[in-house]
């Protein structure tokens, strides 16, 4: 089972070799009420301690596969299920310092059944989360 918040405590960690971190990653719970074609996920923006990491540069890992935003748009027959998470991989040389950070997430979803003006909707979350190790 996942935490109720979109942003999960577990999975927030630096990536890349210790001492030469290339970035960090973060798990986000599927925020939509239905399993969603990846092509309806328009990208994920992350903000940590006020620093914005735009969707265009972030990768998304679902299961064992990693997607660019364009690859998400192409994945019309793969879904992110309810009760599953995506891992957002964020480039940031050196990674994040160990300790507690203020993290914000914005998942872009397209809902074809919403009126055209609202078909792109953003599911937002914000909370403290902790990097345990450098």
């Amino acid at each position, binding site marked *: 089972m996942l935490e109720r918040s979109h942003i999960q405590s577990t999975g927030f960690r630096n990536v890349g070799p210790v001492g030469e971190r290339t970035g960090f990653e973060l798990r986000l*719970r599927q925020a939509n009420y239905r399993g969603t074609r990846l092509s309806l996920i328009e990208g994920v923006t992350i903000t940590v301690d006020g620093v914005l990491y735009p969707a265009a540069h972030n990768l998304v890992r679902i299961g064992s596969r990693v997607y660019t935003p364009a690859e998400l748009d*192409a994945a019309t027959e793969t879904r992110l299920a309810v009760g599953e998470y995506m891992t957002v991989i964020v480039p940031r040389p050196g990674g994040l310092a160990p300790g507690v950070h203020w993290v914000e997430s914005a998942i872009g979803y397209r809902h074809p059944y919403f009126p055209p003006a609202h078909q792109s*909707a953003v599911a937002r979350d914000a909370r403290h989360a902790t990097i345990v190790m450098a």
Partner: protein
Amino acid sequence: MTGFRYGVSLYSYTDDLGTVMTLDDAFDHVADTGATGLEILGETSVPLYPEPPAAWLDHWFAQLERYQLEPTNFACWVDTRIQLDRKLTVAEGAEQIALDLRLAHRLGFKFIRPKFGVIDYNLTPDPIWEGAVERNLDLAQALGIIILPEIHAPTPIHHPVTEGYIAFIERTGTRNFGLMLDTGIFQDRPLTAWGGGDIEAIRKDAPDMVNGIKVPVEHLDDIIRYVPFIQAKFHHVDEDLHDHQIPWERIVPRLKALGYAGYLSSEYEGVRDPWVAIEQVRRQHALIRRLEAEWEAQHA
């Protein structure tokens, strides 16, 4: 006098599912209300949709038997704007509906509700809907399933969208297409919380969704013959069994007078704090059962 049939849509437990509740738990919660009908969202509840594992299918039927529940409606989607720069064709839309018809049939459902992409604020469905549905009428008949578009706020009963569906039924003469009513169209007092997002943002963008479109219950008379299934949308029932938004005290007598004997399938869409929905669904059933019993006592 034939009574209502009571059901629950697992949409009610949105956000609980996967965080504090499993599908097996949901069977338990639904059955303990005394309901006999279980409504699911295919993409939510069927693992590896659209191809569930064989073991899961076995478990599905074992759970239905254990909890004495019957599958009612299978909610599905026709994602017309499937990519940023590509829309589904009629053929692709028809293929999606055929897939859901077959899966719903394997699971024992009697209705599917395909939710089409829309092209305007009044939720006018993408024009592919008509061809995509029409190509599936024979399959639906063969499988014994009725395809139900949802009449959902801000679309009222008297409206070109609803009339378009009725014209389709009259033109084709099909018995495998009908209307699903979502009782959110009768909402006559404002929401204070909404299950799907920030209430203030919605108030700004779509005030009708917050304030309610207040369809008169008398309009039921004009379409009830096309309605084999009702989603009992609601947002808050308090400790005195008063619903704060949906006028059940007018809806229930009208449905009874019209002889409606299909399902009322709970769709809780209120505060999404953990575990709240379990209790809210129980309160709604207690309320509607009380109103039904009062009507029957008066008309015995």
